[in-house]
């Protein structure tokens, strides 16, 4: 089983700690994971802003970067949605399928559905609230997989976020093109986050987190923002027991 990580260009350039955490976590689980350096960007920003032909070129390049892998694990739900849900329309269903858009999984899908993980040894004694990104909910239909993984940790207190199914207002270039609306949506989302009293805000998408942490810092609030892969990694870092206790193929 050849496994690659697809951290997304945002994680690669701005939030590398999330990508490093995902790689180390996978290794700890006995997965030999590569970071193919030919990958750049999946083309989502170009497509969503109205530059379809450029997006198509990026999409083709993106798929070919992962030719030799069986699974490509994403840690950004909107980027995995782009590949799995939008490539068939952008490139044509057959091209996308042959190119392997179906082998792109989100980290929690891989851990739960492929590896079959049922327990994790690790502690994270903090109050945490999880922001469900639009693409995790309605793009790749992750359901509560990331939360299920988080709740395997000792000491973690997962506090449900009110109105969790509404958008944080990022929307890529929407945040700049329609900044007034984006700001109101972001502030209302953050008001709910603050209301939970959580010490850590987490999500399966670094772009939502870039938006929300930008707002938290501008408001000078004290609230840690972490990708959920970072929580899983930091919690299991000093685990003595072999972490992997699964039924999945290797």
């Amino acid at each position, binding site marked *: 089983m050849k496994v690659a990580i697809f*951290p997304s260009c945002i994680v*690669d*350039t*701005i939030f*590398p*700690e999330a*990508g*490093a*955490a995902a*790689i*180390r976590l996978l290794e700890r689980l006995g997965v030999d994971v590569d*970071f193919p*350096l030919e*990958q*750049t*960007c999946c083309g989502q*920003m*170009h*497509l*969503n*802003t*109205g*530059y*379809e032909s*450029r997006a198509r*070129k*990026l999409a083709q390049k993106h798929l070919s970067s992962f030719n030799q892998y069986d699974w490509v694990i994403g840690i950004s739900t909107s980027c995995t949605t782009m590949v799995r849900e*939008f490539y068939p*329309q952008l490139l044509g269903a057959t091209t996308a399928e042959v190119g392997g858009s179906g082998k792109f999984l989100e980290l929690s899908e891989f851990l739960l559905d492929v590896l079959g993980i049922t327990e994790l040894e690790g502690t994270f004694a903090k109050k945490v609230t999880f922001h469900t990104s*639009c693409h995790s*909910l*309605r*793009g790749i239909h992750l359901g509560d997989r990331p939360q299920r993984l988080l709740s395997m940790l000792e000491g973690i207190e997962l506090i449900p976020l009110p109105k969790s*199914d*509404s*958008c944080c207002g*990022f*929307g*890529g*270039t*929407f*945040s*700049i*093109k*329609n*900044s*007034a*609306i*984006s*700001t109101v*949506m972001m502030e209302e989302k953050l008001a709910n986050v603050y209301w939970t009293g959580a010490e850590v805000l987490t999500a399966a998408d670094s772009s939502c987190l870039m*938006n929300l942490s*930008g*707002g938290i*810092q*501008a408001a000078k609030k004290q609230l840690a923002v*972490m990708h959920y892969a*970072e929580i899983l990694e*930091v919690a299991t*870092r000093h685990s003595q027991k072999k972490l992997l206790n699964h039924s999945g193929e290797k």
Partner: protein
Amino acid sequence: MSKTSSTVHGPNGSIPKANTWLLRTEHHGEERGRTYFKSRSTREIRNLQMRKNISHATTTIREKRKKVVSEVPNWEDLRTRASQIKQHTLANLDVYLEEFERNVTKAGGKVHWARDAAEAREIALELVRESGASSVIKVKSMVTEEIGLNAYLSENGIEATETDLAELICQLAGDESSHILVPAIHRNRVEIRDIFEATFAQKGSLEADPPKIAEAARKHLREKFLRSTVAISGGNFLVAETGSVAIVESEGNGRMCLTLPNNVISIVGIEKVIPTMEDLEVFLTLLPRSSTGERMNPYTTIWTGRPPAQMAPEKETTEDRKSYNIILLDNGRTRVLSDEVGSQALACIRCSACLNVCPVYERVGGHSYESVYPGPIGAILTPQLVGDELAGDLAFASTLCGACYEVCPVKINIPEILIHLRSIHSDHRRDTMSGNLERGSFGIVGIVMGNTNLFNIASSSVSLILKYGGPLLNRVGKYLPPINGWVESRNLPKAPNGSLRDAYRKGTLDDLLKK
């Protein structure tokens, strides 16, 4: 044929100007200016009362919808079926429209064909004049708004009265509607009481209590229902196999309009036809649950040809006293049909579920879209009906969060169409400086991202830019477009310790991890 329609068809299939009546932008005669969603919504979003009213209403209706939809075990199958019926009908539109026409004619009605708004308005005016009436009553209809019918009739000395409560509120207040189903959603009960007292009710005579307000409207309208000889309606569905028209409503005003006056005129978009009565069953299950969150709407009127006079049987003594005319409107629809991605929008049954779940609509209200069709459906329908040039930035009025697609009873992939329209828009902006600037920037970014070596260099420099420029930009960026949109309310990300790929290459991944 009208004078207007024969002169407005531009070269290369450009949009006839008469079709742009659905825009609520500056106008001079038949000419309309483009929409400015960004500036209008930035203004509207400051109206906190409006936001409160809309948020309250959409939250309520959203919860109701969720509850009644969960009661239908085969909801997803019904959506799929509805989508298939619509796709099939749209692919064979000519066949079903002709079948519909034959059956209406057989049942004593008359079918008129209108290519655009101007033609439809003229046919309607002519029909009203033939009846000798100087006023008409109206069943709520989006398509009559699309063609600007009320204003046109009024210019020609015919007074049109809206009989749907919310539509009446808008008419009396001189407001534009802000929601497809609930046009006065931006108003609360106190405001409505004040509107009534400023128009037909006596000052101080009303309480801001919904039953009292409705009672006052009922009394005001009763006389109009009884006196009017002409009613104008839209139509939710046209059934080809029988030539029937179906109207779904909640207040009974539609039933009154369709049964009391001697003459009924319907104006309906050509995309509203469906093949059979059996198909109608699918839509009558989906529509009320999706739109008002009811299991069934209170009034469904289905008639064929000349409508029956249930409310006033004495009027049925001679057959020729009741006339039925239906105007089938194109107004850009056949052009939309030729766009493989965009034509999905013609499947819309105007339930407005997409408005009620849209986080953008909830904050900016319907007026921001500067079109008869607001919300997500408006953002995909308006640009296609009026053309990209006049639709401005409407296709960008969305975060692409996908909530609209999830609830759409006919499975219109709204995010996909928005993305498609954005590409058309960026293509059209080649002749503007800002358009070319954006295109150029995305071109450069595209080249960098399309080349691994260039991307390696760029990704390493992002941390340096953020490290040395970030704190400064957080302070002064609000004066620098386009970054101002971000830093007005958000800080830029903190600078990372180099890129992930650099760390991976050097074997220093552990240095990136949180301590």
